[in-house]
């Protein structure tokens, strides 16, 4: 009986030949990460343990990104706790203003996560790195604290669900649309406690940006991790970036799955998830007449250079509707600079967008674009829960960057083909 890619990575990190779903293992971690919301709580817990040192100062990453640049005094105090901890324990992977980025965009770009790694992070979207063929999952601050002290973490080996995606995606259809479609199909707890493995020839057409987006939202179906078997594109992405050796794992042909789902991606159209759950996904052609007040393009889901290129392509020579506030947020400093070099920043600003320094900001209703009561936003972010982007009576609709950009022009939710 074979193993899935997830099982193989877990077995390797628990020094076991074989692991099976349901088994509780103690696994060594390759990277532990936290942000300005979760790390301060973890640091307090770490101090309670009373450990003299962290298990490996090069395997911890601290990324203040949610409320940065610090939005108020309290937020600044949280980051101060992180900065002091990084200094005290010699943690060099501390990325603040000037070198920062949204953690899940930044860390793979920096080569700190590679294929075959086991990563835990005190942030639910840590599952993003599955796009590289790594096992990565979100946990809480106390788990982060324990892992910083011990270098280990207990994990229940998950069952795997396999999503076999076939066919070439149509115009304007991206990784975001595929994952919204899947969440719509199985629901927000459809993959609860399970691994979501995405395979099929569709991935010949999916960029690394698309793959990060897909794995990023595995948590929105309740998944423990999302994972895509690494291929040549994965290797090309890691080459020149990787800070340590990578291992390419693939699932065995006789691996056991909880379930297998076949998706004809060539038949998909761009998707929009309606309030207040990501599972409320429907094709953009069935969105009806939904006017918007704000559009946000960015976040750990869709703040990569490919996303900005699509937004700029849609907005080139057009103007954002007078009734709409468009906010574009590159994921990292490097992406920000690249957007300037390629002229994307100019296109976006000329169209009437606010072009921001990297931050999670509005995605979680932190700052930099909060909604008032009764307002609606279309966003390339990952959650549309009640009050997610501000007022409890505001609404968030999730989409890909092309649909968000087109909607910003139209003033209502539309397909890019409609403008």
């Amino acid at each position, binding site marked *: 009986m074979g193993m899935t890619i997830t099982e193989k990575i877990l077995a390797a990190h628990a020094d076991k030949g074989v692991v099976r779903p349901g088994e509780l293992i103690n696994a060594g971690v390759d990277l532990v990460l936290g942000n300005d919301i979760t790390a301060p709580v973890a640091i307090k817990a770490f101090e309670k343990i009373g450990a003299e040192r962290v298990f490996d100062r090069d395997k911890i990453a601290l990324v203040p990104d949610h409320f940065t640049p610090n939005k108020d005094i309290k937020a600044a105090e949280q980051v101060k706790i992180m900065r002091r901890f990084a200094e005290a324990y010699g943690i060099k992977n501390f990325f603040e203003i000037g070198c920062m980025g949204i953690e899940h965009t930044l860390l793979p770009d920096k080569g700190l996560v590679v294929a075959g790694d086991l990563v835990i992070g005190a942030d639910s979207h840590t599952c993003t790195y599955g796009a590289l063929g790594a096992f990565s999952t979100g946990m809480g601050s106390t788990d982060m604290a324990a892992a910083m*002290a011990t270098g280990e973490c207990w994990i229940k080996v998950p069952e795997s669900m396999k999503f076999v995606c076939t066919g070439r995606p149509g115009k304007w259809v991206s990784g975001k649309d595929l994952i919204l479609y899947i969440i719509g199909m199985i629901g927000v707890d459809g993959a609860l406690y399970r691994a979501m493995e995405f395979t099929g020839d569709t991935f010949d057409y999916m960029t690394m940006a698309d793959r990060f987006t897909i794995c990023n939202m595995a948590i929105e179906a309740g998944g423990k991790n999302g994972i895509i078997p690494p291929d040549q594109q994965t290797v090309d992405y890691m080459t020149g970036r990787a800070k340590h050796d990578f291992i390419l794992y693939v699932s065995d042909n006789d691996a056991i799955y909880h379930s297998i789902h076949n998706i004809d991606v060539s038949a998909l159209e761009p998707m929009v998830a309606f309030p207040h759950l990501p599972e409320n996904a429907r094709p953009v052609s069935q969105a009806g007449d939904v006017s918007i007040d704000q559009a946000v393009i960015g976040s750990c889901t869709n703040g990569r250079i490919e996303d900005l290129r699509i937004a700029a392509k849609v907005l080139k020579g057009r103007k954002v509707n007078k009734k709409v506030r468009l906010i574009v947020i590159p994921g990292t400093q490097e992406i920000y600079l690249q957007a300037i070099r390629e002229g994307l920043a100019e296109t976006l600003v000329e169209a009437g967008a606010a072009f921001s320094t990297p931050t999670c900001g509005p995605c979680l209703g932190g700052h930099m674009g909060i909604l008032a009561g009764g307002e609606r936003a279309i966003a390339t972010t990952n959650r549309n829960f009640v009050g997610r982007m501000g007022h409890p009576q505001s609404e968030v609709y999730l989409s890909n960057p092309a649909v968000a950009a087109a909607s910003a022009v139209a003033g209502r939710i539309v397909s890019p083909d409609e403008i």
Partner: protein
Amino acid sequence: MQIKGNVWKFGDNVDTDVIIPARYLNTSDPIELARHCMEDINASFAAGVQPGDILVGGDNFGCGSSREHAPIAIQAAGVSCVIAKSFARIFYRNAINIGLPILESPEAAEGINENDEVEVILDKGYIRNITTGCEYTAQEFPLFMRDLIAAGGLINYVKTKGY
């Protein structure tokens, strides 16, 4: 350990953004977090919750963000225990790690109503609805988690390993 309290009932997919909205996450002070617990779905909760009260939720309780501030806010608000049909996995871990008692019982979550008085014997997973007289048994925790719970959470558990 025996618990007795009145019930605050919620539906399916109670996410961590409504348990504690991100606009309050610029602090990690439990008392301050408790003041805003649940405010986007039940504005009267934070002011009305009494020490020992019990939260009852539907499926996928605690879905969304990994913020430990969610179970911290619930605990600091005085809630003695959360019963749900099912828990989102990060919330489940976080609750156990910080010592907030949680019990998974679809039958209890279905049968218990708002304002019912409920009694819970934690180590037995026994739930009794005093108001209706109905009894339920929650799903048993795996042995390893029972050790974690007995140690009072992950920090104490790690300490016992000599770090």
